[in-house]
């Protein structure tokens, strides 16, 4: 019985195909696939709506004639303790989503400005943590050794922190100043390890893939390899991470504002509005329901989008 080497095989199934080792799924294919899912379409519409609401908040304010800090004593009944006049928390032609009890501020306009603040903080934090997280993750994953040890220890340390407590304590101890900027800073400090950890893991598996070895063999410098070979393959992961980070930060900021350490009044923030609404929830439930619903819809939509992006990008990688 002769033994013939199996290199003479007709065609070998590629062994050990890495899920992230294939060419990135073209953007167009992703978009077409996503368009077919009704959940995604609805979510994107909601996101677009909220973004427009935030961007055009001043315009909205001009149209309705109410600013976010304008009181309207005529819309509330001071004899009854400041309850809004009219059904559903004072919805009327004047105030499309009603007014806040106690001061009569227009809720729609405040929700719009709140959207501004929340989105700005969340997007800024996402940009910072994604950038920093990708850089740190790639350094740790690609170069290994001491760099990896140091970065990983720092990440473990930050993730072991009871971050909520710390953020609250930090924010309450610091002077008022520029609250949104402070929030972005605090969120970013505790947020980047989560991105970095995922990137690190993927970089490590990519490091051992064939095309990286080929680049290395051809004498390319490590930095070049990192940017040319590894980073493009991380594109999908980065997009998904960023998309899912936004709702996470929106939620955290809302929570911090709810506790009174985030965005300070009178600047509106959805979490803060809900916090104020706690005192009124039995008599004017709309006051907490409206900002709460906006908060929920925003977080929900981003999460649906992120989930579906991940699904499509995973499937794309697997198919190729």
């Amino acid at each position: 019985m002769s033994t013939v080497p199996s290199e003479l095989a007709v065609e070998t199934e590629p062994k050990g195909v890495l899920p992230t080792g294939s060419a990135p799924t073209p953007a167009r294919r992703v978009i077409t696939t996503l368009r077919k899912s009704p959940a995604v379409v609805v979510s994107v519409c909601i996101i677009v709506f909220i973004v427009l609401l935030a961007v055009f908040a001043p315009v909205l304010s001009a149209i309705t004639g109410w600013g976010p800090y304008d009181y309207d004593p005529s819309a509330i009944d001071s004899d009854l303790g400041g309850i809004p006049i009219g059904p559903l928390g004072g919805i009327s032609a004047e105030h499309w989503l009603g007014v806040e009890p106690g001061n009569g501020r227009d809720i729609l306009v405040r929700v719009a400005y709140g959207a501004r603040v929340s989105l700005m903080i969340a997007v800024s934090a996402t940009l910072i943590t994604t950038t920093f997280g990708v850089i740190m993750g790639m350094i740790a994953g690609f170069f290994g050794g001491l760099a990896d040890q140091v970065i990983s220890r720092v990440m473990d340390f930050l993730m072991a922190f009871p971050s909520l407590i710390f953020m609250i304590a930090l924010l309450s101890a610091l002077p008022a100043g520029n609250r949104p900027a402070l929030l972005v800073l605090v969120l970013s400090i505790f947020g980047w390890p989560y991105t970095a950890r995922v990137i690190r893991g993927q970089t490590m598996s990519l490091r051992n893939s064939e095309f990286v070895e080929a680049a290395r063999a051809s004498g390319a410098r490590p930095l070049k390899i990192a940017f040319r070979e590894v980073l493009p393959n991380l594109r999908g992961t980065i997009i998904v991470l960023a998309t899912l980070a936004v709702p996470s930060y929106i939620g955290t900021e809302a929570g911090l504002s709810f506790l009174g350490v985030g965005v300070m009044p009178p600047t509106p923030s959805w979490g803060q509005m809900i916090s104020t609404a706690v005192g009124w929830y039995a008599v004017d439930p709309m006051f907490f329901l409206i900002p709460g619903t906006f908060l929920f819809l925003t977080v929900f939509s981003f999460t649906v989008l992120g989930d579906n992006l991940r699904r499509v990008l995973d499937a794309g990688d697997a198919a190729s």
Partner: protein
Amino acid sequence: MSLASPRTISIPVPGSTLLEVEHLTVTFPTSAGPVDVVKDASFRVESGDTLGIVGESGSGKSMTSLAIMGLLPRGGTATGSIRLNGHELLGRTDREMRRVRGDKVAMVFQDPLSSLNPYYTVGLQIEEAYRAHNGGSRRNARTVTIEALERVRIADAARRVDHYPHQFSGGMRQRIMIAMALCLEPDLLIADEPTTALDVTVQAQILDLLAELQRETGTGMIFITHDLAVVSQVAQDVLVMKDGAQVESGTAEEIFSNPRAAYTRALLDALPRIDDPFDELKGAAR
């Protein structure tokens, strides 16, 4: 096509071939319409013989074996006829097929590491296969298991039966898979690329082992591979598949010495020979 009760599947119809496949077609629904991954395949396997199915990835060779086992992935349908010892397998309920699987037709897969559950000892995994079909006590099953491991030449079987899959080498894991398949004494063994994931030297050992066990037990075997060289060592009959269709079939000698289909010829031409001139390799396999 008698849909006899499961119990009678055990009794072969007198005068029947071990496995007879006729006009087997496997179809999957896709977004672009239904696709036939196996088109009208027909072949037979006799007891004690080995049929080699050769083809590239995507040729439908694995799907054929999954159809025989009734293990097609979700959405797949098989039409035609698959007769084991004279009994029709297609159209049977999952419950009926469960009696067939392992006991009458056993399968060995390509990657032994991922084909074994990493959370359980190899002993347990073989025992459960044995007990699922033969019942009996755990102690009895364990004895059978250790014997099976010894038969596939796992050293120190009595101790290693309690080890986990990751504690064995690739070649040993494949032996364990073979032991698991053969401890049930099946009539037919389907080996789907059993040596592809292994080193060359280990590959030879596994092929030797399979041949020896087949001689001892008289089991029929279907050996699926993309590697023509391996086929030439193990099979009496060969079936060449491409894109789901059966391109050529015949005995091994016929195929290798006198291939009729252009595809088969191209496959053989792609094998370098010692007397080939250096400057030219005859046409590619495509």
